[in-house]
Structure formats: structure tokens, C-alpha cells
């Protein structure tokens, strides 16, 4: 293969990758853009293989190991992607991301151990290896911890919530730095390398573990940006501009996305990273006891009110997602629709624990697109609604965000559900939401609480509605 062809393929791949990233940020083009990026990746791989085939050739051993790695990684990846439920998207992305980091780490280790074979000698290669090992390790362990926390496999040890963790993390960072310097000063000694690997792996854990589960999407996005940096560093190690550009693009785009996500939930990156679990204390203390004047009601009452309504707005929140109640919800709304009741869904941009998560979940349950209303669109419509059904949402319907300048939520745009005639709030108890603060909505006269797990309550509601004769034509 001529050099020109090789370069042309590389340039084309970068062009397609750039178009892919750009397209992914618009609803219209997102799916095509993702496929385009996949094509670009395949093109880059094909180009690389063809280039080596036409020059030095590939040994049988190389083929064997390539096919082995491809089969294992590819098949596992494909299966995971198909099997994983939509509710576990954050965990899944974290897992994939961690593996990307691990891959960079392993390449850098290979280059550190066998520099001659990979032409990775000289100061530039050495520094790149150090960066790649450091960022790759953090990405790997950080992502895995994030995944485990989201899955509920891990909880934060109490000392991790004290200031002590900052001391530990600083010590780990210093150790990593020592390892890095040792590696650069004395490339042959293995001590520096292992010190770097171990301490940066621990650092990844130490930094991620204290972060509250709800802030995880931001952390994953940040780690995703890191894995781009790790790829760019690996590009310096093996001397590939394609890798550098693609890595740099992902790194920068990930940083922007992280910032956008923080803005959306009224939080700063610094407070996410160093603030620890938000409101861990206040949620327990302040959330429960302070409420007076709570009206609670039964599922029957709710069903009767729904039957009499003409216009119902559903407000799904985090609780709906964890309860995996989207399919039951869809059945309930189907029944309401066949009874001629007008149903709409109010989607707050940060409802749930991951941006856009609600849209994905409801789309999965086959809710028609036209019924999903964005916040700005639905807010003026609340006064015309007879019933609002708040399902496991809390902060996104807290009127304090507009009324109380001292509230931590102040300034965050919220859904004005209190404008509706009747509001039912489905949640398990009186505990607070993500922000850990009290919700004035629950005390309003037109609000009734319907306690219970969202899926269970919706199931009961379905039975009641059918008993009332709805849903049959």
C-alpha cells in the first residue's frame, strides 16, 4: 500500500470522526453520526492492517493474538450492549469507559516494558508513557468504582466522607508523582513504573468513591474525557497522529459535555469532585421530620380523580427510573387514553440521574414522541391540567427553586405542577430527593401524597382504573 493511500485513509477517518462527534449533538443526525463514527473506526483499523500487510506482513502469531483479542472483546461487547437494560445506561457507559482506559494502560505498560520493540525510546516516548499509565489507571479504576456505586455494589465508607480522604488522595498523588519522576530518571528500573501504576489506580478509587451516586453521570463524563486524553497519550507512544487527534477531540468534547451537564443541574464541577456526597447529612436529618399538613390518600381516591379528569400530566422522576415502572406507567396511560383523557408527559431536563435518561426510558416503553413535552413547552400548560401525577420526582417539582432565594435549588428551572387543580405525588416516604431539601409542594392543599413504590402504586392504580370500567371499549 502506498504511503499516500495510508495517509488518505487516516485523514478520512479523522474527518469522519469529527463529523460523527458533531452530528451526535443534534437529535436529527445523531443516529447516523454514531454509525458514521463506527465506519470511521473500521476504516482506521482496516487501513492500519492493510498497511502492515503490504509492508512487513503479519506473522501467524500476530494473527492469532489479534483474532483472539477481537473475538473475546468484540463478542463480549456486543452481548453486553444488547442485553443491558435501558435503566442501567450510566453503569454500562462507565464499564465501557473503564475498559478503554485499561486498554491505554496496557499499551503503555507494554511500551514501558519493551520500549525497543515498540520504538518507544527517548524522552518524548517516556513522558507519553507516564501520562498514559497515569491517566489510563485513573480512568480504569475510577470508572469501575463509578459503575459499582451505581449498581449499588459499593457504598462509601464513612471515613471517606470526612476530610481525611483529601489527605489520603494527596498522598497518593504525591506517590504517583514520585513514581513518574523515578520512571523518567531511570527508565530501566521497574520500581517507578509499579509505584505509578499502583498509586494512580488507588487515586482513581480514592477520588471517585466519595462522590454521591447522583453526581455519577458527571464523573463518568469526566472520566470519558480522561479516556480521550489517555488515547492521545497512547498516540504519542506509538507515534500515530490519528490516535492523537481522535483522543484530543474526545478529550475536549468530553470536557465541554461535562461542563454542560454541570450547568444543567445547577452544580459546579469543583463541588462535584471535591464536595463529596451532596446533602448526605441534611437529607437524613432535614428531610423527614419537618413536614406538617401532609394530605395522604389512597389509590382508589386517585383513580376516581383520574377518571373524572380531562387533562392529565405525568411528571416522571428518578424514582420512576429506579422502580423500573415505565412499562406499567405506559399501561396506565393507555387506559386513560382509551377513556378519552388527554395525557402528556412533562420531561424536566435533569429529571432522573442522567441527562436525557427519562426520554430514553419512556421511548423504550413506547410512549409517543408527541406526548413528551419539554419543560418550557409544558409549564404554561399546567394551569389547564386537571390532574398532575408526580412519579418519584422531587427536586424538579420543588417550588422553592422559584420562591426562596436562600434555597440551594434557587435558580434551577422547575416544573410548575402546583398550578394544576390536583397534584398526586407518588413516592415511598417523606424522604428528600437528590438535593436533600424539603419540598414545599407536599404541603400545599391541592397536593395529595400517595405512598408506595412507584411500580407497585401504578400496578394498583391500573387495577382500580379497570375496576372503574376504564380501558374497555
Amino acid at each position, binding site marked *: 500500500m502506498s504511503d499516500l493511500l495510508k495517509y488518505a485513509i487516516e485523514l478520512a477517518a479523522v474527518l469522519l*470522526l469529527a463529523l460523527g*462527534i458533531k452530528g*451526535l*449533538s443534534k437529535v436529527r443526525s*445523531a443516529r447516523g453520526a*454514531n454509525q458514521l*463514527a*463506527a465506519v470511521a*473506526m473500521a476504516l482506521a*483499523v482496516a487501513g492500519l492492517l492493510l498497511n*502492515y500487510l503490504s509492508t*512487513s506482513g503479519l*506473522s501467524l502469531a*500476530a494473527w492469532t493474538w489479534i483474532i*483472539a*483479542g*477481537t473475538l473475546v472483546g468484540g463478542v463480549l*461487547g*456486543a452481548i*453486553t*450492549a444488547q442485553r443491558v437494560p435501558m435503566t442501567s445506561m450510566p453503569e*454500562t*457507559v462507565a464499564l*465501557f*469507559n473503564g*475498559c*478503554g482506559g485499561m*486498554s491505554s494502560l*496496557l*499499551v503503555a505498560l507494554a511500551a514501558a*516494558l*519493551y520500549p525497543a*520493540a515498540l520504538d518507544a525510546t527517548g524522552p*518524548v516516548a517516556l513522558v507519553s508513557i507516564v501520562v498514559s499509565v497515569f491517566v489510563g489507571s485513573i480512568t480504569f479504576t475510577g470508572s469501575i468504582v463509578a459503575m459499582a456505586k451505581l449498581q449499588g455494589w459499593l457504598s462509601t465508607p464513612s471515613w471517606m466522607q470526612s476530610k481525611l480522604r483529601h489527605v489520603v488522595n494527596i498522598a497518593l498523588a504525591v506517590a504517583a508523582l514520585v513514581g513518574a519522576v523515578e520512571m523518567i530518571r531511570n527508565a530501566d528500573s521497574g520500581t517507578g513504573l509499579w509505584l505509578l501504576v499502583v498509586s494512580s489506580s488507588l487515586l482513581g478509587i480514592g477520588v471517585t468513591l466519595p462522590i454521591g451516586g447522583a453526581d455519577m453521570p458527571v464523573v*463518568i463524563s469526566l472520566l470519558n474525557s480522561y*479516556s480521550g486524553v*489517555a488515547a*492521545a497519550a497512547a498516540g504519542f507512544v*506509538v*507515534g*500515530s*497522529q490519528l490516535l492523537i487527534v*481522535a*483522543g*484530543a*477531540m474526545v*478529550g*475536549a*468534547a*468530553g470536557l*465541554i*459535555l461535562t461542563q*454542560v451537564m454541570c450547568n444543567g443541574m445547577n452544580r459546579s464541577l469543583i463541588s462535584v469532585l471535591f464536595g463529596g456526597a451532596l446533602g448526605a447529612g441534611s437529607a437524613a436529618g432535614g428531610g423527614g421530620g419537618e413536614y406538617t399538613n401532609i394530605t395522604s390518600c389512597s389509590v382508589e381516591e386517585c383513580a376516581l380523580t383520574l377518571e373524572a379528569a380531562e387533562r392529565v400530566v405525568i411528571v416522571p422522576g428518578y424514582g420512576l427510573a429506579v422502580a423500573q415502572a415505565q412499562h406499567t406507567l405506559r399501561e396506565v396511560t393507555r387506559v386513560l387514553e382509551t377513556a378519552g383523557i388527554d395525557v402528556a408527559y412533562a420531561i424536566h*431536563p*435533569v429529571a432522573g440521574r*442522567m441527562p*436525557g435518561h427519562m426520554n430514553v426510558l419512556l*421511548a423504550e416503553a413506547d410512549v*409517543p*414522541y408527541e406526548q413528551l413535552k419539554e419543560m418550557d413547552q409544558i409549564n404554561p400548560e399546567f394551569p389547564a391540567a386537571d390532574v398532575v401525577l408526580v412519579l418519584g420526582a422531587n427536586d424538579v417539582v420543588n417550588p422553592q427553586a422559584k420562591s426562596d432565594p436562600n434555597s440551594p435549588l434557587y435558580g434551577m428551572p422547575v416544573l410548575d405542577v402546583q398550578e394544576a387543580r390536583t397534584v398526586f405525588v407518588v413516592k415511598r416516604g417523606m424522604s428528600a430527593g437528590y438535593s436533600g431539601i424539603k419540598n414545599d409542594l407536599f404541603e400545599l392543599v391541592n397536593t395529595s401524597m400517595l405512598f408506595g413504590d412507584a411500580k407497585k402504586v401504578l400496578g394498583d392504580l391500573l387495577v382500580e382504573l379497570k375496576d372503574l370500567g376504564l380501558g374497555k371499549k
Partner: protein
Amino acid sequence: MFVEFLWVLLLGSLLGFELIGKVPPTLHTPLMSGANAISGITVLAALTAIIKAGDNTALLLLGSVSLGFALFNVIGGFLVTDRMLAMFSRKPARKENR
């Protein structure tokens, strides 16, 4: 060589910053997942390591494991993103059918 690398690093980063402008929150998750798949471009590095390994088995093994991890990231990432986006794209189509 090193300088050329720095050039592409700088330009690639600037480009990355510019490419993402206003992303609607709906797309944050798929964008994150798609970008994550792209970061699996380290497949190229893993392949290079295997090809250049000669008969150094340790290196072959390291490269192969690295390749596996990278491909897990790439294939899984692109597929899962597509799954998510397929759900979105069903909708505009429906809308037009009305």
C-alpha cells in the same frame, strides 16, 4: 516529529471544544456513550503493539488483552449508543406520518 504531534494535539483539542455546541439534554447520554466508543480508538495502538511484538509472547499477550478491552469498549459503545438512538429516531418518523 514531536512538534507535529503537538500541532495535531492542539488542533484536535480546539476542534473537540468547538464541535460540541449546544447539546439538548436529551442527547447528553448518547453523546457521552458515542464519544466513549470513539475513545476506544486505542485499538490502533493495541494492534500496533501486537504487530510489532515479533515472537515476544509477553508483548503479544499484553497487546491482545489490550485489544480485547479496546474492542469491548468500541463495539459495545457503538452498539449501545445505536440502541439508545434508535429509540429517539423512531419518533420523528412517526411524527411525520401523522
